[in-house]
């Protein structure tokens, strides 16, 4: 998981440098798009999704593949902003699911989203502490304690932007020791016991299992992150993309999201 961030960095750097690259792969993927005889979907479906969606989307992707034997679903999970940058640089994706509206706006502003993006889930911040809560953290006010080792996401990434809103709403002067590059990095430091608390998403606490405990933050209601999803205009396989979006927004998809700790509309 930690390796992923540097891979993404390289991918973004390469993407940024080859300003007009990426199109070739898209063309190649289109030619492999085939509709099988039973009217099902085929070819390759490429989904770019926020890192927090890793478990749910992988599961939903497998279900879609099971329904359409000719379909190969591939995911790239990373920070929404990195993914938005890749999409605008011409990465050959069919679907983009962002962890907040502003990164989806990067894609819609570039005219790359097919239709209005649909909000399919919401995530709310929670305090994560190592199992046993050694520092006795009880609420947001503890994140102002200088003597504790605390991690918060950097303001440049969605969970950090949300954290700033929450702190502002609560009037808490946070004293973080590190501003993490993505939410999973913050969570890792809790899992390792290297920080006493971190502000992460409820879904991350759910995913971390027993190593991490979650503490609800009433003030977090002020900064709920909406997750929009859209099929992309340059999608090599738009039919499969639409099918995936439908699955995510179906009752089945909503249940899977709820199980992972997301709120669903």
């Amino acid at each position: 998981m930690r390796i992923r961030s540097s891979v993404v960095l390289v991918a973004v750097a390469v993407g940024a440098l080859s300003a007009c690259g990426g199109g070739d792969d898209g063309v190649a993927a289109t030619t492999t798009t085939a509709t099988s005889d039973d009217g099902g979907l085929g070819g390759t479906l490429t989904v770019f999704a926020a890192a927090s969606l890793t478990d749910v989307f992988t599961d939903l992707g497998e279900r879609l593949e099971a329904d359409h034997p000719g379909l190969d679903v591939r995911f790239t999970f990373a920070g929404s902003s990195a993914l938005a940058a890749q999409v605008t640089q011409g990465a050959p994706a069919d679907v983009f699911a962002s962890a907040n509206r502003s990164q989806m706006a990067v894609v819609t502003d570039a005219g790359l989203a097919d239709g209005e993006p649909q909000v399919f889930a919401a995530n709310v911040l929670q305090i994560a502490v190592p199992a046993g809560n050694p520092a006795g953290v009880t609420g947001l006010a503890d994140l102002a304690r200088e003597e504790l080792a605390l991690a918060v996401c950097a303001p440049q990434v969605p969970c950090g932007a949300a954290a700033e809103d929450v702190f502002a709403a609560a009037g808490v002067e946070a004293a973080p020791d590190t501003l993490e590059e993505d939410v999973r990095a913050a969570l890792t430091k809790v899992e390792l016991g290297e920080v006493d608390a971190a502000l992460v998403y409820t879904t991350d606490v759910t995913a971390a299992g027993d190593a991490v405990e979650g503490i609800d933050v009433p003030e977090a209601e002020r900064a709920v992150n909406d997750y929009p999803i859209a099929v992309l205009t340059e999608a090599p396989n738009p039919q499969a993309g639409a099918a995936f979006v439908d699955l995510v927004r179906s009752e089945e998809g909503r249940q899977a999201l709820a199980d992972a700790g997301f709120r669903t509309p």
Partner: protein
Amino acid sequence: MRRTREPGVPVPLLVPAVLAVAFLVLPLAGLVLRAPWGELGPQLAGPAVGQALRLSLVSASAATALSLVLGVPLAWVLARSRARGRSVLRALVTVPLVLPPVVGGVALFLVLGRQGIVGRWLDQALDVTIPFTTTAVVIAETFVAMPFLVISVEGALRAADARFEDAAATLGADRWTTFRRVTLPMVAPGIAAGAVLCWARALGEFGATITFAGNFPGTTQTMPLAVYLALQQDPDAAIVLSLVLLAVSVATLLLLRDRWLSRPGAAA
């Protein structure tokens, strides 16, 4: 056998060499071409840039100094000692070269973190906590960069003529004196080259630093971390920051090269 030399570079060497230059230089040209020159002033005026740059230069220099103090003796041991298991030792100390730096960062946590094997003791007995401090930045950079120094100094030691050392020994110098007065001056250019490599690697270090030292402006946010985070929000700012880092490192290397590296090896 004819000893006349054809002028110029043979075509089988020239073509790949030109491709190599293009491969290495074009991305840099891309950065320069895409740079938002009009925004350069405002971008650089922010306090964060100066802070990150200063931290980068200080921590990379500290990491290089630490690498010199520890790495040169290690290179000597690898090149000169007859101890068994040297090849295993060499393989071990070069592992950071191939280890993904983020994994290196986690490994540093496991040893020097608050819950780490050594770090737990430091934390409890001495009240010293390393992660999320500038010290952690220097440690992470040293971990990743020191092998570059060790490898080049070891190469220089192997290439150096050991007969000078033998001569010093026959004249009554002990091994420590021989090392200081004969070996060290002989391999000085190799040490300088290794130090430059080490410094450059430390300056660009990202993965181990952001993992082990975290990211906080003024304390642990070096330039590569600032670039990465800028990229999340404002790619133009990231390009500007990269250019600053690029300019500083190229300027430093040129300066050192004139002052230091091109000087012929001053043998004793």
